[in-house]
């Protein structure tokens, strides 16, 4: 499934025009992305949570050359599926 399928679904089920459907779907993800970029959590009940985690710098190794390198501190986005979704997948 891609964005195009979601747009089609919105168009079929909610009565928006194709053009509006496309813009609205884009907006939904834009809002989510903007909040995540600011370090905000996104909690969608029944689906899951998107959380930004701060990782500290650590020493790593280049597996190809064996060289020790420092992996700098960074922020990563993780997703945790809700219990509802986890159960649905394992029914």
């Amino acid at each position, binding site marked *: *499934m891609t964005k195009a399928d979601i747009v089609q*679904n919105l168009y079929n*089920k909610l009565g928006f025009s194709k053009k509006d459907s496309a813009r*609205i779907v884009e*907006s939904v993800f834009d809002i989510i992305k903007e909040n995540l*970029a600011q*370090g905000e959590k996104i909690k969608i009940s029944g689906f899951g949570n998107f959380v930004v985690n701060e990782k500290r710098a650590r020493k790593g190794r280049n597996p190809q050359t064996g060289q020790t390198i420092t992996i700098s501190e960074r922020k990563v986005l993780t997703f945790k*599926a809700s219990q509802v979704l986890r159960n649905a997948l394992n029914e």
Partner: protein
Amino acid sequence: MNKSELISALSKKEGLTEKQASDTVNLIFKNFNEELKKGNRIEIRGFGSFVVRDYGAYTGRNPKTGGVIEVSPKKLPFFKVGKELKERVNSGK
């Protein structure tokens, strides 16, 4: 931000009624759940992709009691963040 805040933000941004905005958000995540349940992959450009991964059975321990427990095989959705979003989250912009 939770789902109702997302709905409000969408209604404001797109000039939709609360009902239209909540129908939209609910439809999107209902679609996501259904697709994952079918084992299908979801790919949203600029955001990321979801796939269902199979995990085998293993012997685990209850961290509280130390008791051994058999963990049965399970499926879990895995989210891979898209390049654009990954960079935005890291830079905070």
